[in-house]
């Protein structure tokens, strides 16, 4: 059979593979004269979990913040699900940044819950006020999510009445309630007391198993090894090394990665 005999209604050769959920090309960012990101390339497939590791000040949090439009990059492109593509070569309007925010949701290191609102109000603020979903539906979904993380009885509490671990779980629920395609975690356990870290990590792991696509900035190497499907080591505003977590964390190919991992394993 010659190629011309192939039935024409089958997938033609030109049909592209499904677009990766997140594609970043040549992302650059400077603060004044300080160049913090230098042409970052990243691709994260649907259902994949990327962990960004690296020393503080390396630019990993800035990458994450660019993905949510909290920092505006000055070069490169970010596209989510092939639906939105932002080209930072030409300064994007504020409206375009909301295109990123509509599709991604972020969990902050310091939780950043709204202190004047109750737990439930924190969760439904986005769905109701921004997304315009019916209150009853958004509330039911929020309560189900809160129940899932064991905080249903805290629905009417204010954030200051919760422990750090509880606040961060509300932070995660607030992100999930937005129904994002992409979840972003900025050092989600770094401000928690050590005994509270486990609850939050376990929850993130469950979300990974459920198939959420995530980018996580973390210092928890053991967690990255177990939960991430890929790891990128960021240093000096570039991705020094990128690969399979087990491979990269055990046998890094780059000297800088090796030194960083060594410092984390043997801090003194």
């Amino acid at each position, binding site marked *: 059979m010659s190629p011309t005999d192939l039935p024409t209604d089958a997938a033609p050769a030109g049909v592209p593979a499904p677009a990766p959920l997140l594609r970043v090309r040549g992302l650059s960012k400077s603060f004044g004269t300080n160049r913090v990101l230098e042409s970052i390339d990243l691709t994260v497939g649907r259902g994949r979990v990327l962990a960004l590791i690296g020393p503080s000040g390396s630019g990993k949090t800035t990458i994450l913040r660019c993905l*949510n*439009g*909290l920092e505006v990059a000055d070069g490169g492109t970010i596209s989510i699900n092939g639906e939105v593509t932002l080209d930072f070569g030409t300064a994007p309007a*504020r409206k375009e940044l*909301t295109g990123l*925010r*509509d599709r991604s*949701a*972020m969990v*902050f290191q*310091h939780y*950043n*819950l*709204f*202190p*004047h609102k109750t737990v439930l109000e924190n969760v439904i*603020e*986005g769905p109701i*006020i*921004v*997304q315009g979903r019916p209150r009853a539906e958004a509330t039911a979904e929020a309560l189900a999510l809160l129940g899932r993380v064991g905080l249903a009885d805290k629905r009417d509490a*204010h954030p*200051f009445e919760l422990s750090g671990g509880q606040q961060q779980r509300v932070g995660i629920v*607030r*992100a999930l309630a*937005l129904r994002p395609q992409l979840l972003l975690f900025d050092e989600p356990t770094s401000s928690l007391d050590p005994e509270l870290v486990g609850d939050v990590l376990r929850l993130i792991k469950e979300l990974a198993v459920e198939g959420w696509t995530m980018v996580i900035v973390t210092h928890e190497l053991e967690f990255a090894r177990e939960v991430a499907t890929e790891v990128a080591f960021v240093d000096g505003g570039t991705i020094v090394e990128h690969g399979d977590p087990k491979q990269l964390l055990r046998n890094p190919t780059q000297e800088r990665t090796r030194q960083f991992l060594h410092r984390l394993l043997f801090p003194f």
Partner: protein
Amino acid sequence: MNQSTWDLFLSSLGPIVLGAVTGTIPLALVSFAVGLALALVLALMRLSRRRWISSIARVYISIVRGTPLLVQLFVIFYGLPSLGVLIDPWPSAVIAFSVNVGGYAAEVIRAAILSVPKGQWEAAYMIGMSHRRALTRIILPQAARVSVPPLSNTFISLVKDTSLASLILVTELFRQAQQVAAFSQEFMLLYLEAALVYWVICLVLSSVQGVLETRLDRYVAH
């Protein structure tokens, strides 16, 4: 205190309290409300990234805070007529006090907005809010709580400053006291009595401030 001074004290309490109820208090309330609205606009202008907008607010605030309230009052009531603008005593007083409160409270509100942690803006943007919505639903409610104590001070100062309106013929607490004093020649008694009534009003306001603070202070982000 002999019987006749006591009688004068009691009989003058009527007109003085009347002056407070019909003059001082409404004058302070109206001026404060208008002044606060003005202050919010000025505070947002001050925070604007556009230089010319923030400059306008900066100059306004500088002039209001750098000139005496009494002079502002006289410019409006005794000065403007020479330009053909005649304004009655009451509206003159409201304009002067509002303009004044606007200048002082603008800086209070600006500081309160700046005191809300940056993470609150970011969380608001993250859930998809526009700048305006983030401001009105997330930032201003928190800033309002922070600004209760300093704004209470502004209001208490304003209540006392309304006594200046007596100099542009507004019938308020102090002008009533002055008139009884001129008639009875009992200056010490009447002026102390006026002071006492101001003090009582301010005591009430302070306790209201205390209640407000304990009610609102709890939910502020730290």
